């Protein structure tokens, strides 16, 4: 498979190609999904990068293993990966005795854009504050909020990932968002939000 054509190939077709021995298909699948998987795992695990990398690697490993038996048309590869990451993170979070607070160093590394230094610093502060606030949410609420508002999944997709009903998803995201607003309200001035906004 020519690599310049790979971007047009659907995920499911890439899985078939991979299962038939095409190594370029694995590279394309990894470049498409690994950043998303890594980002989601990092946000779920409170910015623990090493642990998020382990989860991301494990999730991709499960994808490689299931590739030959992948049932076409049943689930999107991205949705399936989100579900695997959700389950892996839930297991790890359950195993943790106490959750670490998110500091600047623990927040997921973000790629630098071409913004001014000051704007970037303000935005990074806000993003770190958001991560810290996300950490205060119960696990299920955090999963639902991240999937909905950061990963951009639809409610039916989140319902599939979390294996719950759509109404439960709506309830979790609404409660999560309210809790986030409340958690960040006390830091408005610190984060550069104007009075009354």
């Amino acid at each position, binding site marked *: 498979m020519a690599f310049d054509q790979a971007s047009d190939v659907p995920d499911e077709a890439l899985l078939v190609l*991979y*299962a*038939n*021995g095409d*190594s370029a298909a*694995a*590279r394309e*699948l*990894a*470049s498409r999904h*690994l*950043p*998303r998987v*890594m*980002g989601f795992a*990092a946000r779920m695990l409170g910015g623990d990068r090493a642990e998020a*990398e382990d989860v*991301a*690697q494990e999730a*991709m*490993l499960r994808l*490689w*293993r299931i*590739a*030959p038996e992948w049932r076409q048309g049943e689930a999107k590869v991205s949705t399936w990966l989100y579900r695997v990451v959700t389950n892996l993170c839930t297991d790890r979070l359950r195993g943790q005795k106490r959750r670490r607070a998110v500091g600047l160093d623990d927040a*997921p*590394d*973000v*790629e630098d*854009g071409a913004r001014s230094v000051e704007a970037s610093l303000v*935005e990074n502060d*806000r*993003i770190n504050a*958001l991560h810290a606030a996300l950490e205060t949410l119960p696990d299920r609420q955090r999963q639902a909020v991240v999937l909905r*508002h*950061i990963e*951009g999944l639809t409610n039916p997709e989140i319902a599939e990932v979390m294996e719950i009903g759509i109404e439960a998803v709506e309830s979790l995201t609404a409660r999560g*968002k309210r809790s*986030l*607003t409340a958690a*960040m*309200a006390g*830091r*408005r001035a610190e984060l550069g*939000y104007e009075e009354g*906004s």
Partner: protein
Amino acid sequence: MTNSDLDDLFAAVRQQPVAVSDDLMARVLQDAQAEQPVAVGLARPKRRQGFWTGLFAALGGAGGLAGLSTAAIAGVWFGFAQPTALTTVTDSIWQTEVAVETVDILPGFDDYLSEG
């Protein structure tokens, strides 16, 4: 902090994907290579059947060969042991004491062959 601020913040996070280290990508691709099924290529050419394999099959496989071996061993045993019952039978058919000197194949023709 309003809902709108929060939405803007979510959008900012969305636009800044988490960087994937080269090491992680390498590990993932290594896994992919290790787990990749072997490509289904051409079927392995059928091995040419050898003489002994053919003979074995012609004799009916293991069962046929066992029967044949048993029969052969029984034959050899009969040859060596010469059971009494068999000797009696063979003696009655082939009496060694009787000496056959001449065999008159067509005795009725003697009259025609005599001169005179």
